[in-house]
């Protein structure tokens, strides 16, 4: 798989079109790595000159900040900003809404000013520019519901880019009871991914999975590696993993094109 690094680009004296910020989940989590690879396949197929930071990338600090550790967050941020500024990064794309939100909104006041887009926005722009074509193929006529990631939707008002990509797949897009501005959290945000939930009578991801099941989808589309994990766990809990799949939008597009 062709995945050039920023260091390689620099050695050749070139600048890539965009830095692909892979994120910790995209780098290490087995499920999320599939999303990363699917996205890279699309980028390569569309001849996008991208690069990753590889071993020079480090956690954005999002979970630390949301857990209350401002100091650790800012240490991470300043370190990452130093690396990105050294490479004169102008544009960043990431498949993680948490990385997206942090780099886009919280890095500027610490000296990191980049154009930051979520991978669904980036894919949408490739589509608009004619660099990417999406055909339904395998998905034609399937029912897909999209789970809005909080840090993409409410946090940054991005609701349409992922939906426009899904519609291109020639599928039936069905909305859950809570969608867009009223989307229900998957339960992972605010550093909850890394701890057990407080005592209650249900897990948040089960509540959200039930909302998804209510609209009888064949596929639950996600746009966040953490939502993906939570919804996948929810589907397993409901013993529906044989009939319903949870896939990132990048995976759906890559699969539709048999990449």
């Amino acid at each position, binding site marked *: 798989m062709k995945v050039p690094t920023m260091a390689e680009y620099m050695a050749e004296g070139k600048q890539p079109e965009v830095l692909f910020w892979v994120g910790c989940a995209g780098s290490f989590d087995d499920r999320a790595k599939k999303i990363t690879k699917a996205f890279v396949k699309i980028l390569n197929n569309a001849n996008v000159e991208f690069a990753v930071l590889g071993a020079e990338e480090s956690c954005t600090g999002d979970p630390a900040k949301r*857990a209350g550790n401002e100091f650790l967050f800012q240490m991470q941020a300043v*370190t990452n900003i130093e690396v990105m500024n050294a490479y004169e990064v102008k544009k960043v794309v990431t498949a993680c809404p948490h990385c997206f939100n942090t780099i886009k909104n919280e890095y500027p006041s610490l000296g990191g000013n980049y154009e930051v887009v979520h991978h669904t926005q980036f894919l949408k722009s490739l589509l608009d520019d004619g660099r990417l074509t999406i055909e339904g193929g395998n998905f034609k006529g399937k029912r897909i519901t999209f789970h809005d990631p909080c840090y993409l939707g409410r946090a940054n008002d991005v609701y349409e880019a992922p939906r426009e990509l899904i519609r291109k797949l020639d599928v039936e897009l069905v909305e859950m009871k809570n969608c867009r501005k009223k989307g*229900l959290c998957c339960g992972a945000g605010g550093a909850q991914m890394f*701890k057990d939930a407080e005592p209650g009578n*249900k897990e948040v991801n089960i509540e959200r999975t039930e909302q998804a099941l209510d609209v009888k989808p064949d596929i639950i589309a996600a746009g966040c590696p953490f939502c993906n994990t939570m919804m996948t766990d929810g589907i397993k809990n409901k013993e529906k993993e044989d009939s319903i799949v949870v896939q990132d939008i990048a995976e759906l597009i890559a699969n539709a094109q048999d990449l």
Partner: protein
Amino acid sequence: MEYIPNILFAILLIAGVGYFTKNVRKLTRNIKLGKDVDRSDNKSERWKNMAMIALGQSKMVRRPIAGFLHVIVYVGFIIINIEVLEIIIDGLFGTHRIFTKVLPDSVYGFLIGTFEILAVLVLITVIIFWLRRNVIKLKRFLSAEMKGWPKSDGNIILYFEVVLMTLFLVMNATDVEFQAMNSGNIISKHIAGLFGSGEHLHTIERAAWWLHIAGILVFLNYLYYSKHLHILLAFPNTWYANLKPKGQFKNDANVTKEVMLMMDPNADPFAAPAEGEDEGEPEKFGASDVQDLNWVQLMNAYTCTECGRCTSECPANQTGKKLSPRKIMMDTRDRLEEVGKNIDANKGTFVDDGKALLNDYITPEELWACTSCNACVEACPVNIDPLSIIMEMRKYLVMEQSAAPSELNVMMGNIENNGAPWPYNQMDRLNWKDEN
């Protein structure tokens, strides 16, 4: 002797408005106990938000039933207040329905007719509201934090409205001259018959008139002690609300200073502070009490009218966790009131009472249940931000008390040591490229 009613009225008015002003001063002082935050940017967008959200009720109507009913009471409240102006002039100058002298009968009749219709609509709506709270028992009015005073408070406000609207209609129905004019008595002419005819009508009319204005002044003063302050504070609250993306949490400037110092290779960690530089008390990280919050967060607390839309949208609350964003706001207000009373009792200075917002009001269990999803912020019809308070308090727990849940300490240790929340080596970040 003939001026006695005028004098009595003036005394009543001055007492009512005066006592309210005194409490507004207290309210402003309490809000100013919060830290400074600059919200003076983008004035045009702020005015627009206030016009749309507070004046235009745009977020209220997202829930159509409650929103529609609220708009009726809101419009009724604003419009019927024009009548209060006439009452005040009449009361001070001993006139009777002064506007009939300056306005043509048809215009006056149109105005009063509108008020009468609105009064009936408000009455009906208020009854529906009461049923929703006490008979239908909507879930969001039954939460733990709604027991006791908050429940009574909600009902008392409704009773006030019933009494005031009824008095307004009775006052019109028993006003012989007004009924004779037969313009604008759309509703009151139908109940006029109930009161018969004769001298006693004048007595009833006067009694209703005095009770109506006295009731309005009592209600005005009730606001400060009630959740009902939102009718005033919704306006500044929407004006000063956060305009940045909801996902953007403020970067702590004090932390930035320290981080920059650590990252600066030329900085001397043992350097003495520069001559004349006052080191002062080191700034506390995060918030454990109301004085650590900013003044907009404190104004948020006074603005909250406990409708509970935030709590009903909260994923943690929906799944049975203790967290309720509404309770966060109510606790902040109650603690702020307690601090305010402490200051009053101690001649203007706060004397440590051994209590704090954290633990005495809000428990860490509530704070750690939050997913930071912003559903509460989005749901609030007047742009209150409970999430920012939760995050400030988490910051205090972690940075001042090292009191994070142990799993989060593990996660943060991993980030510190190997740049990821899980224990993987940073050098392996690109391994996925060659895996199948």
